[in-house]
């Protein structure tokens, strides 16, 4: 394949940074360090996020740069879904003078990156990491961009209860805060409303065999109305395949990480599965318009809400640079922390008065006949959202 000029440019840029050379940063430039997983297990989430983010930066640069003033230069590094590689990449980007750092769709990698950026309080934004403890775990320079685990879980639990479900079974994995905590937040809200949790199953991420868990669910003295899990690929397809193969027809609910083409492609297996997302492309809506523009620009269709979320990060940074009027990391951090009801593709986003996890709407979507069907978009009352667990 012939490489296009922009691709060669990017390669040279990343090669320059890899070799430890500082990318020359001119007075009117702002260097954004992107240390995300373009290969490995997080690639299904980080690749679309980066594609959306790049589109935003290209558009903003065409209009004169971030805040209409500073041309954004991207230094992109692949962290290969490896925490040690993330740390190395972030250190190199900080040394190269990045004013802003973007990190993978994962709390653990983001927290590791935050350990490096916290000293200079460089604003560090995760692509779509959803652990609500990001800022409290490291420092106030860390920001989530996607709806937090507790926010998503609240909306899912509200919906499950309203649908008449009263008995739930949780499937968790202690391997990540997302797979461990999100179902627990769900349980907290669900129980407060009057629901009961019949049991909890635990799996290891990447585990091939769910038969023992499925057998345990079948043997429960009382069958649950639904199974709640934050498992994603490849665990979610494996679990639901083996669950259905064992003849269990209980509805399974998940969260944003199953809003992917792979899970949709499971067809009948996921019929009735409800999940959350930052938005849904309702006909005539802003997200649908964005997805069309994304397809025209990049040549391939947006597969999820992650492309839009990546694009929205560009809008957040643009607004922050405009407010700060500077590329100084600390001023930028303060500017992001002060954003209030900033219009983005899927609605508005607010950081003012939060601990770094934004307030924004959550959409609920159900798979029906192999297609995602929109249910509702909700912003839960703050009092209903469980406090971040430590």
């Amino acid at each position, binding site marked *: 394949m012939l490489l296009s000029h922009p691709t060669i440019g990017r390669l040279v840029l990343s090669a320059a940074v890899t070799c430890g050379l500082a990318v020359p940063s001119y007075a009117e430039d702002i260097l954004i360090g992107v240390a995300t997983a*373009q*290969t*490995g*297990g997080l*690639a*299904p989430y980080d*690749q679309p996020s980066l594609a959306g983010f790049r589109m935003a930066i290209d558009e903003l640069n065409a209009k004169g740069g971030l805040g209409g003033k500073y041309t954004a230069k991207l230094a992109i590094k692949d962290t290969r879904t490896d925490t040690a590689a993330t740390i190395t990449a972030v250190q190199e980007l900080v040394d190269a003078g990045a004013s802003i750092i973007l990190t993978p769709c994962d709390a653990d990698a983001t927290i590791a990156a935050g350990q490096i950026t916290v000293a200079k309080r460089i604003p560090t934004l995760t692509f779509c990491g959803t652990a609500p403890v990001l800022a409290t775990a490291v420092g106030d320079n860390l920001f989530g961009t996607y709806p937090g685990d507790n926010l998503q879980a609240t909306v899912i639990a509200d919906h499950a209860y309203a649908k008449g479900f009263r008995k739930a079974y949780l499937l968790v994995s*202690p391997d990540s805060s997302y797979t461990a905590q999100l179902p627990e937040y769900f349980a907290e809200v669900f129980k407060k409303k009057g629901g009961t949790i019949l*049991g*909890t*199953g*635990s799996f*290891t991420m*990447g*585990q*091939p*065999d*769910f*038969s*023992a*868990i499925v*057998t*345990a669910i*079948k*043997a429960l003295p009382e069958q649950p109305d639904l199974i709640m899990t934050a498992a994603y*690929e*490849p665990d979610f*397809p*494996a679990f*639901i*395949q*083996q669950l*259905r*193969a*064992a*003849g269990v027809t209980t509805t399974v609910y998940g969260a944003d990480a199953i809003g*992917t*083409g*792979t*899970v*949709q*492609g*499971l*067809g*009948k*297996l996921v019929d009735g599965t409800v999940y959350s997302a930052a938005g849904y492309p309702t006909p005539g809506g802003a997200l649908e318009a964005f997805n069309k523009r994304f397809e025209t620009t990049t040549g391939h269709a947006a*597969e999820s809400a992650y492309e839009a979320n990546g694009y929205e990060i560009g809008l957040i940074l643009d607004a922050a640079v405009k407010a700060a009027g500077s590329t100084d990391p600390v001023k930028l951090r303060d500017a992001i922390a002060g954003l209030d009801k900033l219009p983005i593709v899927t609605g508005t986003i607010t950081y003012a008065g939060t601990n770094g996890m934004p307030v924004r709407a959550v959409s609920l979507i159900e798979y029906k006949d192999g297609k995602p069907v929109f249910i509702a978009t909700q912003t839960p009352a703050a009092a209903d959202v469980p406090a971040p667990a430590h």
Partner: protein
Amino acid sequence: MLLQQVINAISLGGIYALLALGLAIVFSITGLINFAHGELMTLSGYALLAALMMGMPLLPAAVTAVAAGALAAVAMERVAFRPMRGASVTSLLLTSFAVSNLLKVVFQNAISARGKPIAMPDWMAGVVPIGSFTIGVGPLMSIAVSALALLGLELFLRRTVMGAAMRAAAQDFNTLRLVGISANRVIAVAFLLSGVLAGIASLLWIAQRASVDPMMGFVPVLKAFIATVIGGLGSLSGAVAGGMLLGVMEVALQALLPPSLAPYRDALVLSGIIVVLLVRPNGLIPAVDTARS
């Protein structure tokens, strides 16, 4: 419930046994632990996906997938491992890691970093009622396929000249060459068989997880490696025993551990393996020539 868990354990153990055998066949002859074995599975998975997308029925598509795994294994030997023949065990090991990582990146960039769903036919999600129990068709088929594959391999090794040559090669490769058997052929057939086993294991693996992704091979090859070590490196019957034991241990602990201890399952399985190795340092059924391990 007990019966169901027993079937679960045999089904998982069978897949591990197939995987471990694939590693053991190559190791017994070349001294190479092929960590790219998992990528042969991934490749078979993509071949299955491609065949199904071209409209092939399941059975021919499955045959295509296994054939793709076998051919890829032979190609891998020819391109990556033959030039390294005679190199130290460490060099071979590193080469296999390199091949494994290279293939993963190729899959990610040439196909997709995202998993591709493979819809299994409805009948595989069916159940067979046995008295008051229901047993899934999937696990039963998995057991049947594993058993047939193991039987087929046993017949090949016992009843054919090439099989005898391979058993001899595992014991003393140099003597075998002195009696005029081509080393290249024996090694190529070993890789071919390991590719066939990877292909079959891949089908069973995919039937359980309903998707194929670039990283798919990592966990299975790790399990296979553990199984071959418990069974005795280089011993074929040991690989089967090790795979079965690993499957049984995993399912038993998953079924028996209380939820509060469930996160320690893998740690307990690995501790169990340490105990096995303390009692039998060369594995359950040590290879005839243990010098290599």
